[in-house]
């Protein structure tokens, strides 16, 4: 078994059984990054020294027969939106180019406590605003399956890192699909947990009522192992929910029976690529072959999701990003005329075009005279979208749908057409509006050899059901075993 081809679970077993040292595992991935990341651009910072030090500590614990954490020795890549003490955290933005957090996010604290090995920080659309990772101030990330294409976004660096075997596990954040869509584009598993399942303490805020952190892995078991560690209550995030975290890995191999899979006609809308639609239908057939009931459901307000989302998310972003004033941290202009101009010039220099658009859109939607017509209206539609899901989940256990309307699009294809880029989030962002968990997993391949993802959505806190349902599909299909040519060890 090559270390790079191994799943997270295989690596965990190999380290625990002392067949491979944590240092040799970390070294294999660090070397893969050094050899291949110049072509992909997944990482913004690689912490070789820190990773090897953490790995050596794991090996030392093993030698001393000390108790080990649940992710002992597993290398992991972290989206650069999560605060890491002493390691740069840029959010892909010029405004935070020099920012080094003085504290760890709760998620990082949990990963360290679980003895995971942090490889470095991954590229992203600036402040997680985008669907292609082209909006980073520093570099674009390319899709390991076809470097002319984007890896999706905003967590494109993390998804590409797992796809290219630069890391067995990665962390992303998902505000409107930013874990699930890049997972689909890169042919890996990505999960957005229920809102409140994972602490947002130390996650740099984009839209606080929508943001949620979640796992990437090459298979469902890896995602389950990582979710188990990062989920749980944190008093420092008042929206984190105090309920027990199931042992996701233990139940994973138990098929769900009976199982009702919902299909919504609204998820097969105009603009959906025929090969993507066919993959979802074939996935329904796979579930049917297990004896699952395929149930037709309806989500009548889903066609308003993009419009509601692109008022709510920018409104929250406009408020959250007001903190980048060039006083406490972040970029400050060299030349300005008085205090107000210092703010405006610093922010004008520090933010890229998409972040500026969202700040403008949000401030417009919140401004006097437009608040009722835009922001409040969007919040009311948000409730109707949530009610649609509540009704659908009376009839089914999970919803099966596409992740994105197409496989990975080309670099530069949508970047100058914001509305078209926004519309590509149509199948993912409703879950954020409603706070629901969703998982994206490899479900097919296009005729041109690009991965196609399928999505399962569930009611709040149904992560265990989603993982088990995803595993049922994975066990019977070959898609998760496909790797881009560049990731295959020589």
């Amino acid at each position, binding site marked *: 078994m090559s270390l790079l081809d191994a799943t997270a679970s295989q690596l965990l077993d190999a380290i625990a059984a002392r067949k491979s040292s944590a240092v040799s595992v970390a070294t294999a991935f660090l070397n893969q990054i050094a050899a291949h990341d110049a072509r992909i651009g997944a990482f913004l910072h690689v912490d070789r020294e820190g990773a090897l030090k953490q790995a050596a500590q794991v090996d030392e614990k093993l030698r001393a027969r000390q108790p080990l954490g649940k992710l002992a020795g597993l290398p992991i890549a972290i989206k650069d939106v999560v605060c890491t003490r002493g390691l740069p955290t840029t959010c892909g933005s010029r405004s935070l180019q020099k920012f*080094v957090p003085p504290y760890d996010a709760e998620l990082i604290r949990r990963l360290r406590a679980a003895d995971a090995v942090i490889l470095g920080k991954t590229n992203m659309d600036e402040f997680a605003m985008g669907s292609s990772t082209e909006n980073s101030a520093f570099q674009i990330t390319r899709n390991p399956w076809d470097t002319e294409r984007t890896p999706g976004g905003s967590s494109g660096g993390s998804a590409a890192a797992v796809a290219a075997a630069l890391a067995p596990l990665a962390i992303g954040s998902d505000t409107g699909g930013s874990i699930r869509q890049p997972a689909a584009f890169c042919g890996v598993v990505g999960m957005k947990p229920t809102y409140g399942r994972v602490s947002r303490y130390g996650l740099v805020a984009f839209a606080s*009522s929508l943001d949620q952190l979640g796992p990437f892995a090459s298979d469902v078991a890896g995602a389950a192992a990582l979710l188990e560690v990062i989920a749980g209550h944190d008093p420092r995030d008042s929206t984190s929910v105090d309920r027990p975290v199931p042992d996701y890995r233990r139940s994973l191999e138990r098929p769900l029976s009976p199982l009702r899979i919902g299909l919504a006609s609204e998820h097969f809308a105009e603009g959906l690529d025929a090969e993507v639609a066919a993959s979802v239908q074939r996935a329904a057939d796979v579930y049917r072959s297990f004896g699952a009931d395929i149930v037709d459901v309806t989500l009548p*307000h889903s066609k*308003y999701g993009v419009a509601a989302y692109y008022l709510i998310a920018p409104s929250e972003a406009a408020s959250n990003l007001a903190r980048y004033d060039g006083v406490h941290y972040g970029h400050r202009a060299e030349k300005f005329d008085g205090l107000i101009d210092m703010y405006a010039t610093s922010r*004008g220099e520090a933010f890229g075009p998409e972040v500026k658009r969202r700040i403008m*859109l949000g401030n417009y939607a919140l401004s006097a005279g437009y608040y009722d017509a835009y922001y409040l209206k*969007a919040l009311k539609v948000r409730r109707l979208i949530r009610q649609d899901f509540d009704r659908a989940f009376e009839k089914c256990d999970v919803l099966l749908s596409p992740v994105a309307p197409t496989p990975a699009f080309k670099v530069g294809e949508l970047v100058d057409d914001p509305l078209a880029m926004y519309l590509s989030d149509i199948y993912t962002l409703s879950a954020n509006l409603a706070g629901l968990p969703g998982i994206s997993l490899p479900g097919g391949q296009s005729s041109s050899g690009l991965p196609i993802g399928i999505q399962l959505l569930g009611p709040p806190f149904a992560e265990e059901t989603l993982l088990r349902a995803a595993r049922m599909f994975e066990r019977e299909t070959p898609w998760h075993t496909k790797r881009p040519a560049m990731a295959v060890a020589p």
Partner: protein
Amino acid sequence: MTARLTRDDVAKVALLGRLKLSAEELERMTSQLGRVLEYVDILNEVDTQSVEPLAHPIELANVFREDVERPCLSREEALANAPKTDGRFFVVPAILDVNH
């Protein structure tokens, strides 16, 4: 619900948002935001008269914690990322005009 977005509207919001935009950015922003606002008009199709807004997916009541002292960042750590400090405070330009 929308009157057509003008360049002046965009300039006003940019000022309120403390965001300096070049003339070219202002132009492009006016047309791009205009298209997005036209699109979001489809929300008008939805009757929301008797619908309560949903601001948050889990509608939690206030979450309280004990009001006790806990460790916090040292002054040095808190100032470490600041663009300008005197070692004790964040340094900002004068807020009040001394001539008035």
